[in-house]
């Protein structure tokens, strides 16, 4: 069984077929999100979908920096001399 810190249940009442949620994770905490989906069918059926929450969950890859981002102050380290 899953030990949990987050449990939420949605019970649909008016035959919704679509549901949309916004979830905020805490950066650094990783784990999985298990979503049990029960459809209104006879016989009843459920499916469990698992999503991974990665350790740096709020980070994304960037391919290009915008001019504003490029204009931000940055640290620079300069080496000089005979590097061997």
């Amino acid at each position: 069984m899953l030990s949990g810190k987050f449990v939420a249940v949605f019970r649909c009442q008016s035959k919704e077929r679509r549901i949309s949620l916004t979830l905020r994770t805490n950066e650094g905490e990783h784990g999985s999100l298990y979503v049990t989906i029960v459809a209104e069918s006879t016989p009843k059926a459920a499916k469990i979908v698992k999503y991974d929450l990665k350790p740096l969950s709020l980070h994304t890859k960037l391919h290009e920096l915008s001019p504003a981002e490029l204009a931000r102050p940055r640290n620079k380290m300069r080496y000089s001399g005979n590097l061997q």
Partner: protein
Amino acid sequence: MQTINNENRLKHMNQELTDLKKRLDKERDKLKKSAVGETAARATQSAAADFPINSKFYLDTKIAAYILTIELQIPIDLIILRSPVVLDLLESDAGSSVLSITPPYLQQLSSPNSEDTQGDSVVHIDSAAALSIGRQWFDMLQL
């Protein structure tokens, strides 16, 4: 001329609709009949369990939050979210569905068994309504 065309099209569509309804009724009858036999019931169960899910889970970088959308071809009865990680539910667009969130101090989900994703898990939920939902869910999984 145009109106006659439209009328024809309307007639055609209505005809199609009644045909589809008939087909639906036929399939339903088939399912009911086949559910009588034990093995047949099992077969329909596995077939029913195979409903297609269209779901997306992605990070919206503008609001730094994940968006989960679930779409089924048949109506949704219940959606249960569980995670060992602390999550904030910021927003939900689920029509008139009833939401119940279990506060962490009420979750007694620890168990000697390791994590398992399928089958006989029990969820302890605080409010009475949610409890009945959980029971319903539990019963259903034990079929």
